[in-house]
């Protein structure tokens, strides 16, 4: 289905606002990223940084209103998802681009058997008969390594454990062999051991199918384990974009640096874990200029003047910090 290295999903300058009684609030501001076949792209950020909103906006599942896409494109193989009609988009979202969510208990319909829910994909997108669709659903459950899949296909979501339910979600998302999987905090609600199993499962299935994975997470550990590239978001902006190894070894943006510094590690045993001072800003009152400057240890007066542009500091490395990018001022693409 995909050729290796092909750009599958390309998001460009995406801006999303929410209408609130106190005026519009900008949750995502000029975000750009892309994911290639076989690549895992992590979108890293705290809650409220706009990481989920950006993917929900481009797949059209964001409630609009109050949400509103102000600008930007999201091209799946050259076709802009944002510009197309709902009907056209439904042929891609749910078929070629699929999603899994964080809380598998509330993300599955409680009164439908998991088999019916997986089979629905085949019935709606492939027009399969009920019987064939259910058979395929059972095969899918087997592929995500649920024991006794043929029997469990009739069970309901509440009869599965958290980890098994997330496997069901995965089976549903991968049922139609999609090109891009958007996984929105897929392991956040799970135990650490189960987390690792699920991530491993995603990686295995990705390798089999050569699909692109967009992994939304707030967990640097998850990023370092599975991501090829990482996009760091803060208060709706992309502040750093790099390959995972580069970002973890030599972070450019002070925010990424702060995140890395606050990771528990063996070296820091017995010491107090450093934290980034302060809290993320409310989207209603984002500081002028660089949104991170109020928490940044190296902020200078210049930082308050204008929003730092995302600039390329090295090949494949972009950052939005006037202190760190002034060396080479080539605008990032």
């Amino acid at each position, binding site marked *: 289905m995909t050729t290796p290295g092909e750009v599958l999903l390309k998001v460009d300058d995406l801006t999303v606002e929410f209408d609130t009684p106190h005026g519009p609030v900008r949750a995502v501001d000029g975000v750009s990223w892309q994911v290639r076949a076989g690549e895992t792209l992590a979108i890293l950020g705290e809650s409220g940084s706009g990481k989920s909103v950006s993917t*929900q906006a481009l*797949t*059209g*599942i964001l*409630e609009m209103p109050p949400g509103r896409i102000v600008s930007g494109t999201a091209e799946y193989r050259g076709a802009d998802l944002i510009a197309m009609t709902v009907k056209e*988009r*439904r*042929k*891609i*979202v*749910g*078929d070629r681009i*699929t*999603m899994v*969510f964080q*809380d598998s208990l*509330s*993300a*599955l*319909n*409680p*009164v*439908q*058997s998991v088999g019916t829910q997986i089979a*629905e*994909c085949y019935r*709606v*997108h492939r027009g399969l008969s009920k019987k064939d669709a259910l058979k395929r659903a059972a095969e899918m459950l087997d592929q995500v390594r649920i024991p006794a899949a043929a029997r469990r296909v009739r069970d*309901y979501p*509440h009869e599965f454990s958290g980890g098994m339910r997330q496997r069901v*979600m995965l089976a*549903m998302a991968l049922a139609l062999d999609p090109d891009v999987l958007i996984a929105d905090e897929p392991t956040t609600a799970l135990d650490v051991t189960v987390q690792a199993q699920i991530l491993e499962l995603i990686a295995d299935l990705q390798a089999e199918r050569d699909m692109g994975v967009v992994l939304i997470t707030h967990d640097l550990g998850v990023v370092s384990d599975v991501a090829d590239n990482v996009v760091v978001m803060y208060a709706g902006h992309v502040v750093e974009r790099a390959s995972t190894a580069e970002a973890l070894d030599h972070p450019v943006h002070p925010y990424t640096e702060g995140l890395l510094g606050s990771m528990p590690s063996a070296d820091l045993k017995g010491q107090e874990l450093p934290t980034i001072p302060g809290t993320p800003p409310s989207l209603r009152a984002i500081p002028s200029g660089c949104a991170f400057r109020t928490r940044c240890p190296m902020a200078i007066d210049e930082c308050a003047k204008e929003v730092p542009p995302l600039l390329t500091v090295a090949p494949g490395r972009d950052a939005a910090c006037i202190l760190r990018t002034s060396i080479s001022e080539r605008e990032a693409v």
Partner: protein
Amino acid sequence: MIRFILRRILAAIPIGLIVTLGVFALVFAMPGDPLRELAGDKPIPAAVLAAKRAQYHLDDPFIVQYLLSMKDMFTGHFGTTFAGADIADQLRLRIPVTLKLATLGLVFQWIAGLLFGLYAGFKRNGVMDRLLLLATLVVLAVPGLVLYFTGQYLFGVELKWLPVSGTRDGWPMSYLLPAICIGITGFAGLARLTRTSIVDTANSDFVKTARAKGLGEQRILWRHVLPNALLPVVTLMGIDFAGIFAGAVLAESIFNLPGLGQFMFQAIKLKEGGVVVLLSTLAFLMFILINLAVDVIYGAIDPRVRNV
């Protein structure tokens, strides 16, 4: 399933005892002498009074009276009312009246509640939704009694569209006005619950999942939103159904329909403990049966409560 039903019926027995005992005690505690009340201002010879008192066990201690009337009820010897009417005959005449009224009232109530609730839920924040909110607020704020009398006056006395009272015009004409009144007083709660439940469900995560699966809005609505949104609605419909008897007491008294509710009303006025307990037991049995039915239906539509 059968074990579940049996368990529920067994559990109903002690509750039934408590309910009947409580109702009997309340009637017993009411002030006034039933026989004197029946006679009005006319003097009654002491001998007649004593004979009547003995016939209805009125001089026995409370618990003996209770047990005697329970015995009568279970052996099917309903006896006669203080006024001399055969209670079994009365039941035969009155049960159909109440059933007709309750069914019609329930149909109005459910149809109006579901229709308005569903529509407002689908088109939330639309004109209909806001009108419904206003209408339900008015209905919930106006006491049923006021509404019954207003309806009777407006459509019966002034406009003469429907009979004012009695059953002379037969089914369904005589029942329409009281049934509509029952429907109006009862639909508001159902409509609001249905609306809220749909709105809540439409915002839930699994609906987001359904969207992410690329399903059409109609499919999402019928396959994912409604089956979940209607769960609490079914519960309320059951409670409404079971509570319809209470509405019937009021409606039958005001519209002078010779049903069980009116019978109950008269029996309470006359302090006829036996009749009150008999009718309460009937209502209680209905309540248990309806609740059982709701539980069985609920198990069928919600897999999470099966086998409990």
